């Protein structure tokens, strides 16, 4: 009798171990991990609708903040516990690691069946690996954009008016931008806020001016090492931050300000301008529904030879788990989710730009400006700069903002890191 009891206890203890690896992705036919918790309700609605129509159960699980989400996906990949649909939230180098390790399905064949033609080209190109890419990924389309985004400068029309600026004509040139900053400061208003503590956002701003000063070929040549980061055109890029610091344009604490704080600063009228993505429309609405604002392109520099570009294209792109037994169900769901009706519904509920071009008609005036500027977003490049070099750029731009370094010191440091990384390769 005692033996039987022991055996039963042992079996009971083993049950969790035998079932956990199987059940984690079997909570529904299609499990999706996303990082934007503010969209949970809209996602659940879409999932319920799909189940009603097809009898295929879909479960959205959202995890924030995005760094935590990214770590979770990495850990799940290593433990072979990825859900049917997820996003790596990384750059192409990181996505390529997932693809080369066999975790992300190639969607090229499905895309050829007419799916591709409904979607915006730019975000699709960001999910495409071309022939001869530096990461040695088999050419193809590996992700599906479910919405589109762009990063521009929001400005508070009421504060502009208060400072004697014309809210209908925001500054178009760099000089006018600095002058607007001066007038705002004189009126006791902090001119500019952004989440510059988050490296990527300060990098986005610097990159806009890199495209303006160097163009695509110049950026490619810098990555390849034929143009140095100490080049005069790069110095002009760093000068952007020095000029803004000199004109006292930055909001208090911008160097350690995360974007959520910057959004709050702008939404509560503590700063007149904010560099932020199109998702900000939803964020500002939730923080201050009466906020009276417009959006503008970052103003071009007078010496800039190339068109001004902004960060954007894909908003959230999703990848399909290549190893999932429900891979086909996952692809079918994504096709349905990116169809016109669902995209209109999602765009309205989440105040975002849909990835389906046919669904972009009914957007608000502000989102229309963002959608029109998707064509001005950075081109997808076949090579990328090492993260260490980007990190030094971001850190040194912070150093320029706080007056710790000159642009020449920053340039020398960035180039030194570039050389170090080139040597390491």
């Amino acid at each position, binding site marked *: 009798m005692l033996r039987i009891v022991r055996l039963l206890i042992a079996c009971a203890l083993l049950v969790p171990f035998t079932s956990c690896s199987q059940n984690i992705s079997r909570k529904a036919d299609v499990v999706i991990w996303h990082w934007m918790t503010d969209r949970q309700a809209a996602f659940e609605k879409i999932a319920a609708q799909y189940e009603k129509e097809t009898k295929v159960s879909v479960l959205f699980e959202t995890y924030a903040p995005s760094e935590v989400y990214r770590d979770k996906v990495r850990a799940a990949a290593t433990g072979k516990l990825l859900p049917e649909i997820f996003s790596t939230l990384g750059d192409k180098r990181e996505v390529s690691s997932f693809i080369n390790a066999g975790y992300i399905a190639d969607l090229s064949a499905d895309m050829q069946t007419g799916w591709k033609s409904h979607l915006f080209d730019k975000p699709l190109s960001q999910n495409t690996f071309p022939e001869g890419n530096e990461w040695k990924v088999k050419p193809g389309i590996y992700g599906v954009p479910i919405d589109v985004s762009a990063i521009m400068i929001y400005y508070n029309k009421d504060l502009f008016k208060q400072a004697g600026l014309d809210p209908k004509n925001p500054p178009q040139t760099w000089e006018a931008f600095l002058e607007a900053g001066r007038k705002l400061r004189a009126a006791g208003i902090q001119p500019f806020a952004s989440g510059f503590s988050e490296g990527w956002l300060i990098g986005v701003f610097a990159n806009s001016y890199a495209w303006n000063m160097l163009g695509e070929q110049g950026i490619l040549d810098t990555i390849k090492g034929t143009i140095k980061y100490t080049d005069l055109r790069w110095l002009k890029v760093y000068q952007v931050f020095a000029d803004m610091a000199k004109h006292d344009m930055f909001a208090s604490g911008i160097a350690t300000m995360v974007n959520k704080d910057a959004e709050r600063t702008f939404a509560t009228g503590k700063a007149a301008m904010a560099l932020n993505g199109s998702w900000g429309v939803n964020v500002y609405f939730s923080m201050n529904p009466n906020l009276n604002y417009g959006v503008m392109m970052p103003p071009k520099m007078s010496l800039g030879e190339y068109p001004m570009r902004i960060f954007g294209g894909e908003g959230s792109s999703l990848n399909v788990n290549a190893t999932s037994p429900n891979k086909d169900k996952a692809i079918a769901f994504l096709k349905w989710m990116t169809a016109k009706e669902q995209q209109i519904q999602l765009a309205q509920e989440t105040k975002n730009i849909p990835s389906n071009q046919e669904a972009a008609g009914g957007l608000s005036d502000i989102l229309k400006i963002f959608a029109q500027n998707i064509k001005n977003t950075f081109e997808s490049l076949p090579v990328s700069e090492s993260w260490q070099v980007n*990190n030094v750029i971001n850190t040194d731009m*912070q150093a320029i*903002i706080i007056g710790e370094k000159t642009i020449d010191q920053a340039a020398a440091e960035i180039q030194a890191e570039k050389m170090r990384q080139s040597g390491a390769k």
Partner: protein
Amino acid sequence: MNKAAKEKTINLLFILPAVALFSIFSLYPIIRTVQLSFYKWDGIATTMQFVGLLQYKDIIFHNPAFWKSMANAAYVTTLALTFQNGLALLLALLVSREIRGENIYRTIFFLPPVLSGIVVGLIWKWIYDGNYGILNHFLTGVGLSHFTNFAWLAEIKTSLTAVAVVHMWKGFGYGFIILLAGLQTIPKELYEAAKVDGADSWQQFKHITVPSMIPVFTVVAILTILGSMQIFDLIYSMTQGGPAGHTHVPITRIYQFMGNGEFGYSTAMSVIFGCLLLAVSFIQIEVSRRMNK
């Protein structure tokens, strides 16, 4: 099986769960960390590239940012060892004098350590905030108008110290509890005898309290060093290493490299950091042993 052997087997069985848990959750990760540090691996790829000691060489000779972060952690640790532990000792001495409401003080002083580091960091971030913070509100209220919009966490001169202050506020309760427990183990007869011999309070403190407390001071110092050098959650929630890397500490650097797919490199950093902490702890123990002799 004879009786002694049976007893030995039963004893071993009793410690088996602890050994198993230690092996799975401590020993294996340590071994694996050391092993990974010799490889270049992005955390995703199915293959790893053996690079030997190359990553160690790069960290030691070509990564000044890592050593700068070490210096930042050492600065926080120095402040914690002096001010945090000084305050903890002072409060422990006061509370050990059988004052009224002793337990209330104990509870109050031990509250900050039990709070979540991230929550504490976010609250203090608000206190320090240049746009909304109550610290600036208070300072301008008492006439220090140049503190309007002063960003404590974004200024080079104040950022690391501002984080260290929060770290000390959060950590002094641990030292307080340990020091208080230590003070209460010193026999009262020693103080009574000293009083009879005419020793004043300072002499009693110097010749009875301090020598009796050396083992306790050692424990508190080691815990402070380990806790301060490994500070992470406060930095992560308050500054993310900024401005311009001025509040980066080794753990945030390790996390940064790991987050960017440099698993091998970050584990090499962890091994170096772990060895340094071990060395500091051993030195500390050795010094206190000699002082005790």
